[in-house]
């Protein structure tokens, strides 16, 4: 058995040379001073592989078009076992890779490891940093929620500000006019088709260069005997990788990545925020205004990148001990303070509302929480076309007051009187009276009392089937026996979670003849038109559990 194994090994080795290549790789000589400070490169490479892996798994259940992206992601999060974990790993992995890449660069920078002959290694590394950030930018759009949409609007507009190249860049990104299918396809294509091979190529080149010049020794190290890469340094790299992975895994499990509401280009109240590692750029932009804006958005970042690439040519002295590299240290401190200050300022200026409004839409959305009565209010709200005169949040110049401002809502009785004879309650108003019955006005008032800035868009987006379903629910007085979202009676069973208990066909058959499906039921039969039956059932099935 053993002999046979040896035979196979020899055959493979003779034909491919894999074993000796691996051996050569592992038994590479490294300076005696190598150690824990050099683990970050390996960790970054590992995290890249985790991203590739989780990214591929997500792609298996993800439809990369604006029409489907959001729903398929929601499907991953709510329907698939382990889907939330996969997305968590991919999401937090993206942040982590930025952290680790920066740590890796800091180490190289502080030790001066970019010096002759390792300038090219450093420059390739800077390009890899830029690629890492490019993943962040393109991946940001892919959930196609409000955050993604508005973040990308800003990104593409910044790209458009670049001198000379701006308009072409914008066209390349498909960002002319509205952000839509074209931009989406370009971003997805970049994210999964162009960036990964580029990254792999540059990573291989980077490692090749590291191997070619050897791991950078500390000054005075040359005299000491070299050691082998394997197993001691591999062990240290592995420990670091394991720690990084453990942190990543814990974050993916414990920190829920929210999915905001579906991208809404008409949502004028949305304040986009970039990913945390771009916040400093976002804040810096605020320091420049008017014609100087391009300085903050393009010129300064461009210069910073150029400076970073040229580091090995600016600092050309001999290698010295880390502790003697005061200037480099001062530089790092300065950059850290600048970055930290700008980021802190950006975080502090984030308005509270947007945080509170970050409802996790992978769970039930706002309109699902409304009572049937309030839902019906939406129907009359739409029928009476209230938005032709009233704003719903934002700063649209409308005739009537903004209905999301809680201050204008009195109590229901006042509102109903106001609907009937607007001028009696608010002298001089140009609002026409609303011709609805008392019960209908009641619903309208109930809905308006629920309306606020935070839920306005979500409620405005309530699908028509649900509104129609609620209307049927009300006109047939289902609430006289049943409970929905905590309102109604308990004579019949509560209807939340119906979808978990019964199939659609069962429910529809049950409407037609309750006693047949549930012997002894006292519910009267309901002869509903097919469309009504469908709407009502869909509405009941959409209720939260």
């Amino acid at each position: 058995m053993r002999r046979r194994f040896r035979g196979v090994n020899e055959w493979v080795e003779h034909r491919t040379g894999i074993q000796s290549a691996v051996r050569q790789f592992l038994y590479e000589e490294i300076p005696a001073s190598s150690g824990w400070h050099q683990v970050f490169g390996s960790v970054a490479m590992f995290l890249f592989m985790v991203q590739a892996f989780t990214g591929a798994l997500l792609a298996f259940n993800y439809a990369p078009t604006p029409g489907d992206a959001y729903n398929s992601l929601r499907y991953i999060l709510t329907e698939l076992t382990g889907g939330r974990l996969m997305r968590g790993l991919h999401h937090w992995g993206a942040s982590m890779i930025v952290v680790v890449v920066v740590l890796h660069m800091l180490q190289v920078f502080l030790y001066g490891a970019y010096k002759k002959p390792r300038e090219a290694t450093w420059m390739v590394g800077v390009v890899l940093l830029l690629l890492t950030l490019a993943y962040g930018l393109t991946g940001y759009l892919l959930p196609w929620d409000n955050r993604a949409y508005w973040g990308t609007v800003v990104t593409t507009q910044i790209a458009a500000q670049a001198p000379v190249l701006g308009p072409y860049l914008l066209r390349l990104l498909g960002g002319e006019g509205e952000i839509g299918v074209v931009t989406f396809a370009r971003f997805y294509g970049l994210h999964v088709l162009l960036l990964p091979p580029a990254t792999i190529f540059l990573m291989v080149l980077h490692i090749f260069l590291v191997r070619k010049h050897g791991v950078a020794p500390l000054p005075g190290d040359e005299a000491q005997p070299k050691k082998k890469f394997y197993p001691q340094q591999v062990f240290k790299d592995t420990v670091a990788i394991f720690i990084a992975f453990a942190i990543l895994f814990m974050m993916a499990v414990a920190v829920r990545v929210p999915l905001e509401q579906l991208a809404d280009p008409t949502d004028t109240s949305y304040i986009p925020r970039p990913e945390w590692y771009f916040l400093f750029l976002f804040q810096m932009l605020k320091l420049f205004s008017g014609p100087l804006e391009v300085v903050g958005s393009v010129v300064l970042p461009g210069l910073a990148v150029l400076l970073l690439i040229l580091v090995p040519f600016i600092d050309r002295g001999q290698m010295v001990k880390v502790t003697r590299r005061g200037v480099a240290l001062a530089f790092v401190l300065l950059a850290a303070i600048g970055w930290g200050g700008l980021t802190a300022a950006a975080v502090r200026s984030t308005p509270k509302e947007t945080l509170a409004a970050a409802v996790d839409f992978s769970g039930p959305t706002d309109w699902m929480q409304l009572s049937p009565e309030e839902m019906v209010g939406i129907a009359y709200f739409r029928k009476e076309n209230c938005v032709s005169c009233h704003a719903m949040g934002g700063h649209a110049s409308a005739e009537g007051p903004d209905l999301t401002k809680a201050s204008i809502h009195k109590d229901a009785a006042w509102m109903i009187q106001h609907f009937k004879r607007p001028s009696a309650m608010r002298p001089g108003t140009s609002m026409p009276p609303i011709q609805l019955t008392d019960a209908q006005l009641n619903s309208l008032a109930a809905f308006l009392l629920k309306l606020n800035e935070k839920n306005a868009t979500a409620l405005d987006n309530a699908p028509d089937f649900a509104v129609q379903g609620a209307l049927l629910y009300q006109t047939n007085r289902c609430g006289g026996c049943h409970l929905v979202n905590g309102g109604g009676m308990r004579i019949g069973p509560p209807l939340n979670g119906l979808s978990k208990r019964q199939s659609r066909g069962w429910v529809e058959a049950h409407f037609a003849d309750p006693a047949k499906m549930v012997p002894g039921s006292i519910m009267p039969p309901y002869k509903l038109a097919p469309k009504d039956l469908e709407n009502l059932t869909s509405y009941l099935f959409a209720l939260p559990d």
Partner: protein
Amino acid sequence: MVPPSEDEGTSRRNFYVVAIYGFWAAISAALGLPALVYLLFPPKAKKVDEWIEIGDIGRLALNSPVEMTFRRTRVDGWKVISEKSTAWVVKGAGDQVTAFGPQCTHLGCAYHWEESKGHFLCPCHTSLFASDGKVVAGPAPRPLDRYQTRLNGNRLLLGKLESPEKKS
């Protein structure tokens, strides 16, 4: 920490090697097992059996299969789609009605009824089925699949598609 050298004794070296394999095994398991679950576990689908009315069978001739088309909604991943579907419906003696799924049990081609010969023919590899779904000739391994059926007067309702052999 004294830098370990080549001749340091194998126990320390062994510790490194074991630790390296151990850590990587743990990482692979923590990534691989959830990945398998994610790919292999069925989605938490909600609705199951549904009865769909597909039409009037009052005027069907006895023992003469007819292809009936109908629409049904199906949960397809993150979408609920409404799609066209067909069934071969055969009216037997009495109130007996059978509805066959439209796919050949060999490799899934669409078959059709040959009126002159009195059997179902699958053109792909020439499987023949009798009007009761039994295999007459060809490579098909089992009789045609049947829908669950239910009659509401003359209106036929179809349920799940199942293989008559599994039903036993």
